């Protein structure tokens, strides 16, 4: 695509919604995609470097901070960092205790990881939309790259790969514990023998199958949808900065208002992902009859 594309509104939006994709293009060979079309052409065997980088960076940050506190933790008077960590751990543990009735030492750390990780990834949304992509483009321009063809999406949860990745892992855990607790027969019976009894087996399978499959889908799409829409609104607001003084001021006001509102959304989405994971795992641990 030509560099003039980035100057139109459509191009600007398109630019912001394209991942930094590394893969093998059928025509250009191995390398970074120079446009969203090229990224799509790469098919499955490509990797979104920006999503991976930011998600692992933020997850690592979470692990590093919490591990640092856990190493120096004391049962005596806690310091500031320990207090903060304990507050979060207490909050997560309370939720697990409230929604999860079986005993499984994995659920609480899983919930903590989901909450902290998703929250931090969502938090990237509050950075000005152009800040990191612009800096990254200027940085690569030093090495001769065209900034208009350098993509960077800083919010990993606006990439369905990230949300589906987590949701699928949760889904596999649900399947694993369903089979482990109820046995293969029990799990299959749960899928086929209710709510209509054994003569309504096809209807049962249809209903239960949909309800089972809707779990990872709803988990992943809810988070992705919320964050994607939020990001999109930030991008649209950013378009206002191209106009005159009035539009600039309006844009500034709107961005502030939306950012404040977004603080609620990012926390809420992280919380919802965590709570639904706990609830799904609790259902997997429970015999229905």
């Amino acid at each position, binding site marked *: 695509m030509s560099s003039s594309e980035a100057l139109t509104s459509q191009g600007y939006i398109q630019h912001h919604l394209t991942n930094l994709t590394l893969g093998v293009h059928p025509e250009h060979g191995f390398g970074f995609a120079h446009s969203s079309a090229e990224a799509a052409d790469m098919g499955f065997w*490509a990797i979104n470097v920006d999503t991976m980088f930011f*998600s692992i960076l933020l997850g690592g940050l979470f692990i590093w901070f919490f591990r640092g*506190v856990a190493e120096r933790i004391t049962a005596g008077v806690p310091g500031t960092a320990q207090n903060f960590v304990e507050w979060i751990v207490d909050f997560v543990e309370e939720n697990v205790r409230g929604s999860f009735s079986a005993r499984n030492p994995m659920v609480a750390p899983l919930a903590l990881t989901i909450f902290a990780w998703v929250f931090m990834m969502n938090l990237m949304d509050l950075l000005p939309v152009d800040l990191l992509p612009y800096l990254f483009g200027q940085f690569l321009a030093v090495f001769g790259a065209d900034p208009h063809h350098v993509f960077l999406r800083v919010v990993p949860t606006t*990439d369905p790969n990230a949300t*589906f*990745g987590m949701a699928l892992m949760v889904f596999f855990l649900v399947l694993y514990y369903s089979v482990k607790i109820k046995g293969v027969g029990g799990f299959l019976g749960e899928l086929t023998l209710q709510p209509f009894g054994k003569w309504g087996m096809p209807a049962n399978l249809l209903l239960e199958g949909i309800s089972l499959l809707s779990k990872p889908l709803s988990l992943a799409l809810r988070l992705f949808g919320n964050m994607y829409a939020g990001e999109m609104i930030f991008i649209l607001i950013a378009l206002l900065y191209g106009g005159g003084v009035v539009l600039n001021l309006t844009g500034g006001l709107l961005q502030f208002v939306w950012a404040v509102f977004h603080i609620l959304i990012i926390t809420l989405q992280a919380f919802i992902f965590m709570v639904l994971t706990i609830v799904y795992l609790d259902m997997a641990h429970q015999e229905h009859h």
Partner: protein
Amino acid sequence: MNINLTLFAQMIAFAVFVGFCMKYVWPPIVNALAERKTKIAEGLAAAERGHQSKALGEQRALELMKDAKAAAAEIVGQAQKRATEIVEEAKGDARAEGGRLVASAQAEIDRETNRAREELRERVASLAVAAAEKILQKEIDVAAHRSLVDSFAKQL
């Protein structure tokens, strides 16, 4: 916006983070929280025990003080009794000693009286003899009349 290999990479990253959190982050924090909980419970129980033992100690101190006062009063009473006894004893002793002294003085007086009487008797005897000698103006056998004079003197 395409589903690609990132999906699996994200799943692996997620699994690694959860595993690490489960192994190295969650247990120490939760253990510390549980430990603090027991510590606080113990502290509260100890405070409760302290309160109880303080009340108990105060009660015991009051009892001890009461006992001590009673004992002191008893001791003072006994001492007073003993003092009275000692005074009485001393009075009795003094009376007895006085009586003895009076008696011995009386005996001395009696002895002295007897001695004086004896002496007087002898003197009177010899005086009588001398007087008789003088009166008779003659040789008298002293030895012959001696017993007569003695019996006379004894009648004095």
